């Protein structure tokens, strides 16, 4: 069960992205495709991929070893995820105008993926793609990421709205993901 986090600037440039494979809940295999793919690569994706039939066959060739926190998933999967994230941006912007709360729970659903969003006062968007419902954990995770993001912004060597490459930030976000997701 995986989570994908994207941090986007107010002008929708990607600042940071992370893929986190949680070990908290067992994987739910629901499709026949899953038996052919290595376990990390998603029974989760199976549902999505069969829907996007053109993309599905290419993924079988990706055999990434290990189930740890791999930063980039296989090429095709990545595109699907990004497509889902981008599609949710419109919905998020609509809600942004009406609601003043920071944590917008789940704004969009795509097959089995739910998109949750968090808008900072500076109009940064934190988008999380996830499969399971975990509102409290996700809210705490977003708050944690927000605080880490604030600390990074205060670094004088960081130019605003540029991609975050700091290893410290990355490590801490991963640790927080492990804790809450």
């Amino acid at each position, binding site marked *: 069960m995986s989570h994908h986090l994207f941090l986007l600037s107010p002008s929708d440039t990607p600042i940071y992205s992370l893929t986190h494979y949680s070990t908290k809940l067992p994987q739910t295999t629901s499709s026949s495709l899953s038996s052919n793919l290595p376990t990390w690569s998603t029974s989760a994706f199976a549902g999505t991929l069969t829907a996007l039939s053109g993309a599905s066959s290419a993924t079988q060739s990706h055999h990434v070893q290990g189930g740890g926190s791999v930063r980039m998933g296989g090429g095709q999967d990545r595109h699907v995820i990004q497509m889902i994230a981008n599609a949710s941006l419109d919905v998020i912007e609509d809600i942004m105008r009406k609601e003043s709360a920071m944590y917008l729970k789940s704004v969009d659903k795509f097959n089995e993926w739910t998109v949750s969003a968090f808008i900072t006062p500076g109009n940064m968007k934190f988008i999380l793609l996830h499969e399971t419902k975990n509102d409290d954990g996700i809210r705490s995770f977003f708050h944690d990421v927000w605080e880490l993001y604030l*600390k990074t912004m205060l670094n004088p*060597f960081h130019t605003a709205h540029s991609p975050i490459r700091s290893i410290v930030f990355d490590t801490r976000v991963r640790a927080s993901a492990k804790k809450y997701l």
Partner: protein
Amino acid sequence: MATTSKQYKAIGEDLWKSRTDKINSELFALTYGALVVQLIQDYEDYAEVNKQLEKMGYNIGTRLIEDFLARSSLGRCSDFREVGEVVAKVGFKSFLNITPTVAHSGPPPPSRPTSTAQQSGVPGSSFILTLDENPLAEFVELPDEALEGGLWFSNVLCGVLRGALEMVQMQVQVEFLSDVLRGDESTEIRVTLLKYLEEEVPVGDD
């Protein structure tokens, strides 16, 4: 009357609490950070940036010492060891609200200089200040180029110490030994006494 270490601490505390206007430390850290980043962009050479920071610190230090002596009403230090104590416990405390630990070393410092005893050996005594926290470098992470280029982020402090001590007739060499921003264990500054300065006759007075 020899002032003990504890008394210096108390003086420093008192100065910080009662006779200092305070500003927000985040603003201070952000301002200094912006300054360093701008210098880096302007000079593009980290050794040069270090030099400029030190020069700026020197200008600050020459003025700061008057303010410091006026507020603290401390007399002349009897030896270099005492200089180290005062700098760490009263100076740093009243300006930055930190108390670095002092480690003294080097040849025994000369006794209180008189006007004629100048020539008797240039003392090489030194002390090392170990800062456990650095308000200037709050939130800072050095990028790789800065690490490789040898940037000392808080080099302005070295200049301040050099300038201030020069105004009280001590010529010192101040340098960073290590910095946590660079990945070292602690932040250390070494102050080495080069010589005591003669009172100089102002130009054009004779």
